[in-house]
């Protein structure tokens, strides 16, 4: 059928099941917005393009579907850069639609022109500059396919505004055929048998769950593996939730911000099996030392991750959803050496829980434990970056896979609030809680306007320590407590901010009031801001 390219674009989105586009307009993407306005898709106006990308990311992470966002050319596109890089690091499937100046002006430094494909090349899975409107439908179908398959990631489609307004023939094409792009990596029983042998021979084998397990929707298969074998499990930050945090074999997060039982097991293991993990420096600071003390097996859908950061003895490039059931079968009849696994579990059981004894401020770790209790670990939780992120990672007891939405690889302050909004719009029935640091919150605070406008009823828990807490602590440790550039001062007055957006607000300053404050937040219908007063000397771990 012959139609405007912008209309064909919207039809492809509808074919893909898109219901929300997070965006911000400008002249160069107005034809897209015009077509969206006439369609079944809602354009969710954010307050900054970065918020649009993060909201689409929250949407994508919770649903497993491709998130879509749009911005105008030039500053609109560059405001998206942080969000795109964040999605690239955490393998989040996005299609990013940017307007570009008219074809005839490309390359002439026109008003609001930037080389969008140039600046997004190192931070996207793929990108396109659409020159011929007839290519647009095929490119969009490819963009969705590439973003959502294999190791997911953001795909940028840059469309000159005149191209958006040309007429094209549109015919849905079905699954794209892209020469040389083979996202499916089937697993083999032979590989599973090899890893099973290594596990059987090891005295102290350990499973490391990465975010890949969640992306592959393989957490059930993974939990079955852990339960069937009794193998101890640790996770990376992105892998939290691969097994329920309360699972008897789960020891917690490893790495520089991980918990002692997980790190102790990691230090003692003689076989470490990475499953869907990048082995980043935050997870394993000294990869050579690890390779010396233990055998390393690495399973990932992205062959380039295997051997990139850590030399490995057994390399398996495969889709975990296919691989894990094979591994479980290959390990039939096997049980992990009891001494080792039990010792690890005992260490975890012996870990003291954070308490609420202190007066005059709230213990944030205690609050996260209480919040976890109150919600049964079943909330969808987003975080910012800083101490708030680690308090959440180590103390909220996630009961369900894929409900911890955090910026793992890029560590992007400002992610949590818009991500929570995107998640809530994707799944209005879920309880979505944004855990905020006061520095990070102020980076995305204007998105409260979008949250209210679009009825995203998220609960906001704001840790107010009036400081960039994690950096403040870093200066304590590494700069003899010379604090520089980390004090946030006395403003703003958060209850007034909440009032400005008609958001009910509570403040909790004492541990003894934590439970009632949480109850008030959960019982109040709609969006809610809980201000939690925390001592700035509170430790991260």
């Amino acid at each position: 059928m012959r139609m405007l390219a912008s209309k064909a674009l919207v039809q492809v989105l509808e074919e893909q099941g898109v219901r929300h586009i997070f965006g911000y307009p400008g002249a160069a993407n107005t034809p897209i917005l015009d077509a969206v306005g006439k369609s079944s898709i809602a354009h969710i106006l954010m307050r900054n393009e970065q918020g649009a990308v993060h909201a689409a990311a929250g949407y994508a992470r919770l649903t497993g579907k491709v998130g879509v966002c749009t911005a105008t050319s030039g500053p609109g596109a560059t405001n998206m850069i942080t969000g795109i890089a964040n999605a690239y690091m955490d393998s989040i499937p996005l299609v990013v639609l940017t307007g570009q100046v008219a074809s005839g002006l490309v390359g002439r430094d026109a008003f609001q022109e930037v080389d969008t494909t140039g600046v997004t090349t190192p931070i996207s899975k793929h990108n396109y500059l659409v020159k011929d409107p007839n290519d647009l439908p095929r490119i969009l179908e490819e963009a969705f396919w590439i973003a959502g398959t294999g190791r997911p990631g953001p795909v940028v489609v840059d469309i000159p505004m005149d191209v958006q307004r040309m007429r094209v023939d549109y015919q849905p094409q079905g699954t794209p055929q892209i020469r040389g792009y083979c996202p499916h990596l089937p697993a083999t029983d032979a590989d599973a048998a090899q890893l099973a042998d290594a596990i059987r021979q090891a005295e102290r084998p350990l499973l490391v769950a990465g975010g890949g397990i969640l992306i592959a929707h393989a957490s059930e298969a993974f939990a079955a593996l852990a339960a069937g074998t009794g193998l101890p499990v640790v996770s990376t930050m992105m892998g939290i939730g691969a097994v329920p945090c309360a699972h008897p074999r789960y020891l917690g997060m490893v790495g520089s911000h991980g918990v002692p039982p997980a790190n102790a097991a990691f230090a003692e293991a003689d076989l470490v099996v990475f499953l869907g993990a990048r082995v980043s420096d935050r997870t394993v600071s000294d990869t050579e030392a690890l390779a010396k003390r233990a055998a390393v097996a690495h399973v990932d859908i992205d062959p380039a991750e295997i051997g990139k950061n850590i030399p490995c003895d057994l390399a398996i490039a495969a889709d975990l959803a296919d691989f894990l059931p094979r591994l479980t079968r290959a390990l039939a009849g096997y049980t992990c050496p009891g001494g080792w696994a039990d010792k690890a579990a005992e260490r975890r059981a012996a870990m003291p829980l954070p308490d609420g004894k202190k007066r005059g401020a709230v213990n944030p770790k205690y609050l996260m434990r209480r919040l976890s209790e109150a919600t049964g670990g079943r909330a969808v939780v987003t975080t910012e970056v800083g101490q708030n992120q680690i308090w959440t990672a180590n103390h909220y007891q996630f009961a369900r896979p894929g409900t911890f939405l955090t910026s793992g690889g890029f560590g992007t302050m400002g992610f949590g609030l818009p991500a929570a909004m995107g998640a809530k719009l994707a799944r209005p029935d879920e309880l979505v809680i944004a855990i905020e640091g006061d520095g990070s919150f102020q980076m995305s605070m204007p998105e409260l306007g979008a949250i209210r406008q679009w009825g995203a009823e998220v609960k906001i828990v704001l840790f107010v320590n009036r400081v960039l807490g994690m950096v403040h602590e870093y200066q304590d440790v590494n700069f003899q407590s010379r604090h520089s550039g980390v004090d946030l001062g006395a403003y703003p007055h958060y209850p007034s901010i909440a009032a400005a957006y008609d958001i009910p607000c509570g403040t909790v300053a004492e541990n003894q009031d934590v439970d009632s404050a949480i109850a008030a937040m959960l019982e109040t219908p709609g969006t809610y801001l809980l201000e939690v007063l925390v001592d700035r000397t509170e430790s991260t771990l």
Partner: protein
Amino acid sequence: MAKYILTALVNNHAGILAKMAGLFARRGFNIDSLAVGVTQDPDISATTIVVNGDGHTVDQVLKQLSKLIDVIEVKHLPAEQAVSRELSLIKVACDPTNRSEIVQVVNIFRAKVVDVAPDALIIELTGTGDKIDAFEQMVRPYGILEMCRTGMVAMRRSGQ
């Protein structure tokens, strides 16, 4: 450190060269040369990349290149299985007294004189990098006014 030859078939799309070059720079891969040209299929270009590094680097270059959507396939080509060539143009200073001497060297190397002026010759030479290096040594004493070389292009020998 050793040199490795990689050959890649890529979609002939605008920007693919920038994507490849950007990848090498960003990941700190040390590239000796990168040559690109269209194949018998106008939609596909063949590229030859010479990488400096160890086995681990080559493994990573191969995998990272494969991840580029516009890269159709990329392979390591062991030197003993490769036919490889470079082309060079060399402008050598000359005068009537030494011109024929230079032409003798040109003939020995089976190079070609492609432009003649009273005070200079442009010589075209095709061969392996070593051959071009050797030729350069031979004509250097006469005075090299200008020189340019393509990167290596390479192909697997038939039956290998």
